[in-house]
């Protein structure tokens, strides 16, 4: 039986973090040298945690599947990072950032964690500036801010359209400084294939060298997973090709609860799918909705003519265009939150008004803004995005509207953690997108970077000491203990089993099949019947995978197909979990929309009396249905209300 004690400290929500720090146990410098911490992942959360642990004097082993820590997918974040600095003097505060984040998450996050996130947000900006992160500045030399969806203040710091890149490079440089100092051992092109448990605690990992194919045993007094989200379950997503949920699944299989797996964010402004060999979807920044108007033709025959290539969007008269967001949501118009905008696009396309060759696209039109502000002003604001669009689509968005469609972008669900970011497995921690903690059912723009760095720089360095303080006399293990040997053998057997299948289908072809099932039944709009079908179809895909996948090559040396196959095995498991969780949650909230639970106008309808909890799934064994446990959510400060954007 798993223990879901969230360990929320005593006191009013604004004093909890101070109270925690005042009472927590510490490890003295001499003892830190005797303790090893394994950090898996080198994105914002992983790199910032590993660097900070190293600076404190712990021995750190840091793993990444990439050739360099700097490749982690945090690097692709465009928009910015939120903080409650209130530099623009527009009424922001820690309380307001906290409140907006809980509300934006549709009241499905834990208050105490979100408040701490808002509290440390300001420290993150200070830290990054000290590292030399080149944030955008005003002519007076001070930092510039911009506004983002879901907030009435300007609290977003940014570095051109490359904020994620610059923050990651900052964390990467701090990490490399520790590598140079000898406190961090870096393992590149190395994948974690299992977590080693000794006496009920996480004590190490089994890793696989992706270049040689060799298995390695690594001991750590504690293990931190910072391996990102599982959006690639859908095959097509805005995630990088290598992003995967495998470390999270290994944790789940060792007893870590997986919380709210069905909470996945669908981003409304992505470049649409163009053909069956599409490998990933490219995000166009949310900021475009500030000046772009979203529409589809009013008449079905116009939409059909456009799809057949007989009509151009610029030939459609103003009166024949349906600016459906402005029509449905006059108060927020094109700036409704991501989940609302995505569902509205799907509704129009399903009704037969979609454009593009596939009919799965809507227009994002800058004509009105160009007329109002001039082309130069639009170029100054969005030039790099327009150029990116043109390179991919070969259309000039200054002359003709962009085509966009929603795509899977971020997963709010993940490994369940308590206030200390510890999972239900003692000694196993989870940080960043890999955990479930702060965004509830929907994440606001510019909050992912904030959470990743908060966990790594300012939360784990405190909370992990509280755990390690009891371990100071625990000697290092050699890796030759029975638990390590057994775990390595088990991992090896899994890889050999995959290689032995020798079927007829490529890994990608099966992954695409899984992705289509996920998108059709566990995507933007879900219903009971569809989810039940999805669970059956995923079981069929699992059978097909384990009987018919073909992996050329051997276990030795680099084998990319083998890597992909082992990750797909885990995606199949995540897909099943997502469907089960979505089926269980009989309400609509944030990114999770159940068609049975909507208002008369088609808006999401929460069921607070029944579902104000985090659904935490416990693994029961291969081919057995997982068991769900509840962590009830109580709101002491935030007033729970229905979101309204009309």
């Amino acid at each position, binding site marked *: 039986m798993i223990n879901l004690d969230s360990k929320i400290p005593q006191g009013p929500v604004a004093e909890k973090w101070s109270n925690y720090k005042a009472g927590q146990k510490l490890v003295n410098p001499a003892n830190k040298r005797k303790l090893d911490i394994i950090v898996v992942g080198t994105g914002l959360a992983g790199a910032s945690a590993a660097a900070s642990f190293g600076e404190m004097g712990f021995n750190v082993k840091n793993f990444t599947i*990439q050739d360099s820590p700097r490749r982690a997918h945090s690097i692709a974040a465009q928009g910015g990072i939120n903080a409650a600095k209130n530099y623009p003097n527009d009424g922001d505060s820690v309380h307001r950032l906290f409140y907006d984040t809980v509300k934006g998450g549709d009241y499905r996050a834990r208050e105490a964690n979100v408040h701490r996130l808002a509290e440390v947000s300001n420290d993150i900006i200070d830290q990054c500036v000290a590292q030399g992160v080149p944030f955008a500045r005003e002519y007076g030399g001070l930092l510039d801010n911009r506004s983002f969806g879901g907030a009435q203040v300007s609290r977003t710091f940014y570095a051109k359209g490359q904020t*994620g890149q610059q923050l990651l490079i900052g964390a990467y440089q701090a990490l490399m400084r520790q590598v140079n100092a000898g406190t961090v051992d870096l393992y590149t092109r190395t994948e974690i294939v299992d977590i080693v448990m000794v006496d009920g605690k996480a004590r190490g990992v089994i890793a696989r060298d992706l270049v040689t194919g060799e298995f390695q045993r690594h001991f750590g007094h504690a293990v931190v997973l910072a391996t990102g989200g599982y959006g690639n379950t859908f095959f097509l997503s805005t995630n990088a090709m290598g992003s995967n949920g495998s470390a999270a699944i290994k944790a789940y299989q060792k007893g870590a609860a997986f919380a709210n797996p069905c909470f996945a964010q669908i981003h409304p402004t992505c470049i649409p799918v163009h053909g069956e060999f599409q490998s990933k979807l490219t995000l166009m920044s949310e900021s475009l909705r500030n000046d772009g108007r979203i529409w589809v033709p009013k008449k079905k025959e116009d939409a059909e003519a456009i799809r057949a290539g007989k009509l151009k969007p610029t030939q459609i008269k103003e009166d024949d265009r349906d600016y459906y967001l402005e029509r449905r949501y006059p108060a927020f118009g094109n700036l409704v939150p991501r989940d609302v905008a995505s569902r509205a696009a799907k509704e129009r396309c399903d009704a037969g008004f979609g454009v593009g060759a596939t009919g799965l696209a809507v227009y994002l039109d800058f004509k009105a803004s160009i007329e109002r502000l001039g082309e130069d002003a639009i170029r100054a604001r969005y030039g790099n995005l327009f150029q990116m669009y043109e390179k991919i689509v070969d259309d000039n968005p200054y002359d003709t509207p962009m085509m966009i469609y929603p795509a899977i972008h971020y997963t709010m669900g993940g490994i369940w953690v308590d206030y200390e970011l510890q999972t239900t497995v003692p000694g196993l921690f989870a940080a960043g997108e890999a955990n479930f903690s702060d965004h509830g059912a929907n994440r606001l723009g510019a909050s992912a970077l904030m959470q990743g760095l908060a966990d790594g720089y300012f939360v784990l360095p405190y909370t992990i000491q509280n755990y390690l303080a009891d371990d100071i006399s625990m000697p290092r293990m050699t890796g030759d203990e029975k638990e390590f040997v057994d775990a390595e053998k088990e991992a090896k057997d899994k890889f050999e089993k995959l290689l032995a299948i020798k079927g007829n289908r490529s890994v990608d072809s099966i992954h695409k099949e899984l992705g289509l099932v996920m998108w059709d039944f566990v995507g933007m709009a879900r219903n009971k019947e569809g989810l039940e079908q999805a669970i059956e179809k995923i079981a069929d895909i699992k059978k097909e995978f384990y009987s018919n996948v073909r992996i050329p090559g051997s276990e030795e040396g680099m084998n990319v197909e083998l890597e992909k196959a082992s990750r797909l095995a885990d995606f199949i498991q995540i897909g099943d979990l997502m469907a089960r969780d979505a089926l269980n949650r009989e309400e609509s909230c944030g990114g999770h929309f159940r068609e049975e639970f909507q208002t008369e106008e088609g808006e999401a309808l929460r069921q607070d009396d029944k579902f104000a909890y985090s659904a935490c799934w416990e693994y029961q064994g291969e081919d057995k249905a997982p068991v769900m446990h509840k962590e009830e959510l109580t709101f002491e400060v935030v007033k729970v209300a229905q979101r309204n954007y009309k």
Partner: protein
Amino acid sequence: MEKNISLTLKVWRQNGPKEKGRFETYKLETVSTGSSFLEMMDILNEQLVNEGNEPVAFDHDCREGICGMCSLYINGRPHGPDDDVTTCQLHMRKFKDGETITIEPWRSAGFPVIKDLIVNRNAFDSIIAAGGYTSVSTGGVPDANALPIPKPDADEAMDAASCIGCGACVATCKNGSAMLFVSAKVSHLALLPQGRVEASMRAKNMVAKMDELGFGNCTNTGACEVECPKGVSISNIARLNREFLVAKFKD
């Protein structure tokens, strides 16, 4: 409009770092001009797997031009025949029906081949570890607005910091020099007051590490700037030389 083209590919295949490599020729019948170059590689690999052969190993990840992972030498140019793009942003509409495309890994002493088109770029990490940071630890730093920074300096630092560490500059340089990469980092940090403190030491240590790892010297051919997908300027190299000289005079 998108159409389908057929291609002949000459691809470098090499089983391991110490094995001998060779070109293999493959035919692809229907490739949409709307596909990206790496999606074309996916099509090739799907075909190879379905024929029971080993797919071509190549590095890639974000597929939106920012992670710096993709690294192909296409028809003699790093990141192929388009300007200001990484290989993942290159699209097949840049190629003609029936064309033969030659695909090689980065070729440079500093980047040994691991397999097929994948090379080892750990040397870049080692150069950063030698000094490409400000020596501040987490916590205890001043308020972010305590120190105003002139906007032009901040903007110039941002331009230098936009380097994605892909290695195209080294791959295209006839000397295999990493000067553009090193100078981008030295400039980024030297232009900001936070990084100014250690500027000359940083230049000295990073250059020493670069030399130690077998990268060549800069002879100002300017090829690196032309092929840099992020448009990092060679004026950074002048700034690096200045910092380096200052450090030498101090010795």
